[in-house]
């Protein structure tokens, strides 16, 4: 899932390690999420968004999320 974490981090001047500490995960976990390789759980997505003072939709892009099979 695409996201704006890298851009938002740069705006705040935070390193991956700093964001990781704020949301209580490891630095490599933030790297995996930031690169769109790992989709975070809803609680973690909320924690990340909260740290940027934004909503989940403003941080994570849902355009490449596959719709549920009908």
């Amino acid at each position: 899932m695409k996201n704006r974490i890298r851009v938002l981090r740069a705006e705040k001047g935070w390193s991956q390690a700093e964001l990781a500490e704020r949301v209580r995960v490891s630095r490599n976990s933030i790297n995996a999420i930031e690169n769109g390789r790992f989709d975070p759980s809803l609680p973690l997505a909320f924690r990340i968004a909260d740290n940027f003072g934004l909503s989940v939709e403003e941080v994570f892009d849902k355009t490449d999320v596959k719709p549920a099979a009908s």
Partner: protein
Amino acid sequence: MTKRVVGKFGRLALLLLPVVFVVAGLLVAMPWVKQQNPAVAKFVGEVGVIFVACYGIFVVLRQQRRMDEVHLASQGFANSYGWLWGGVATIFLLLVPPVMNWLVDLVNATVKARGAGAPDTTNHLAVQLAFFYGISLVMLMQGLGVCVASVVWWRRMGGLGEKS
């Protein structure tokens, strides 16, 4: 950061210390244990093995509590594929004649060193040792498989991230 890394390894070392004490204690007490009744020696050995196994489970559960969701997913991937890869690798390894011959020679040499029967005849100790070495090889290969699968997972996840 250095302090944190030292702290992390220090905590792990502290966690593993009881196992080191028990194993070292058993090794030191070995001459005394051998002089005792075989039932006592067997009991001491079994208590040691059960302690190490239970403590291993405790350490794994404790470490798991500290993991975040990406690490838990990594562990799930590494376990599901690593155990399989390790098992398959062991089967292929045992198909290679030199490896199988080396294991047979190892069992024979150990049996001979302990003076328990001729090396070319099957006996209780030889069967026990064959099981022990066989299971050890499977565990070693599965451990390696888990490590390889873990590396594969983190490479797929884009590496370890930027240096801080």
